[in-house]
């Protein structure tokens, strides 16, 4: 019986930062470090799938969850939170989805763990996730009226 740490993430935060900048430098709208451990990066919704696949597949990041926020600025903000196993940093990708279309590509085909949270955001905030593998209600009942979104502020 082993009581020790077996598997280590093999990159440092500096290396990760460098790799992200090498690949996506021109696509980052804003890079904001609130402190050493909390990084928020704004990108365009069209780059989301590439960026998150790069994080998850190439950099071996762990998907934590996504938070959808309805804003008064005519759209919905979605933050995809990632971390890098043993590293303390939480890396949040922020995208702004414009109303009234509210359509983006789903990342669930590549990141299995994102399947539920995308279903939740879809039903609570009314964002359409294209190419989602299993889009149906998660926490609201099946007979929930169409077009009613509990976390929207404009309703």
């Amino acid at each position, binding site marked *: 019986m082993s009581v020790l740490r*077996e598997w280590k993430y093999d990159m440092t935060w500096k290396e990760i930062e460098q790799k992200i900048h090498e690949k996506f430098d021109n696509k980052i709208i804003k890079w904001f470090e609130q402190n050493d451990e909390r990084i928020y990066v704004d990108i365009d919704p069209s780059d989301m799938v590439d960026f998150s696949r790069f994080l998850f597949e190439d950099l071996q990041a762990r998907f934590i969850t996504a938070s959808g926020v*309805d804003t008064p600025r005519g759209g919905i903000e979605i933050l995809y939170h990632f971390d890098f196993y*043993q590293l303390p940093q939480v890396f949040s990708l922020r995208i702004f989805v414009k109303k009234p279309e509210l359509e983006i590509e789903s990342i669930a085909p590549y990141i299995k763990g994102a399947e539920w949270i995308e279903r939740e955001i879809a039903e609570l905030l009314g964002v359409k996730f294209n190419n989602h593998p299993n889009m149906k209600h998660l926490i609201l009942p099946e007979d929930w009226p169409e077009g009613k979104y509990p976390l929207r502020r404009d309703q």
Partner: protein
Amino acid sequence: MSEIIPIGPYHPLQEEPEFFRLHVEGEKVVKLDIEIGYNHRGIEKLAESKSWDQVVFLVERICGICSCSHPAASVNAMEDLGGIEAPERAQYIRTIIAELERIHSHMLWLGLAGHFIGYNTVWMWVWKYREIICDICEKITGNRQSYAMFKVWGVRRDILEEDIPWIKKYLSKLKPALDLFKGAVMDDPVIHARTKGVGVLTTKQAKDYCVVGPTARPSGVAIDVRKDNPYFAYDWVDWDIVVLQEGDVFAKVACRILEMYESVKIIEQCLDKMKPGPIDLNVKELPPGEGIGRTEAPRGEVYHYVRSDGSNFPARYKVRAPSYMNIFSNEVAVVGEKIADAALILAAVDPCYCCTERIVAVDRDKKEERVMKGSDLIRLSQERTEQVRKELGV
């Protein structure tokens, strides 16, 4: 042709109602559908109408078993947003409460797992020794559950110096009990036969499904927020995280038992290292901005995201509980296993499962429907243990 066995949607024994639809061929499980949301309370929406102080109380109501892990993540998020940390003594007290809770939560799960596989003695033992923890919690906080100890930049009650020797003495009673569980569970050939190689979640699957806590660690994924992103007093004390490689139900049991020893270690060190000092900064207002708080609850990482517009209420409050990630991984862990093992595997992620209120078995060919009680699934599992016991001749 596969049959469908619905399990759920609600069990009065534990919270977190879920609904599992097991697709079976003969005795083998071929597919699992999971439905949640039977008890959606809209706490995220409700939090937007509560003041910062009230939010901490509100999130304490999310889970009854790990009642302090949500307030812990909540104060972490607000302190991340505000940018100041709580005083040292408050951090030690918070750590003690969080670890006491981890022990009693793991014990509760161990007892239920024992009940599932027909070891009711383990169940009764666990309930007996869990009292020790509940008594200590009552001494420190005034409550056996839902302690209401956490507040932003502090705790609500101090641990009295004259109580510390009593707590230490009482806690020392727990060690023989832990040895008892370790011996009873880890040296028993029947439990080995029932749990080894059952419900395996590989390292790759654990990473794909992004599972956390004692579902990830037995699969070789060494994540623990207490080590990775230390909060409270976890980097001031000496302890190890428990990582195992097999990923089966046995590894999940072993991981939890070994973690309880580490928790006792942490509590003892905190009690020794605690120095007199302030326990609260009494800051009332939060600036506009956003904050992320995460803690290692007994079931894994709790994640809170909070946004403030400078007012007295959160503009957005997002909660992600560990079972949200862990339950989903059952989809792969249970496939290919026997029905009699399914109850145990679904319980092994500690989702406060037990949602076997009723079972309806539908035979698609015969179009017959037979309705069973939730206890039938436990009976099935217990019969399997009896059978294993006979085969092993013990």
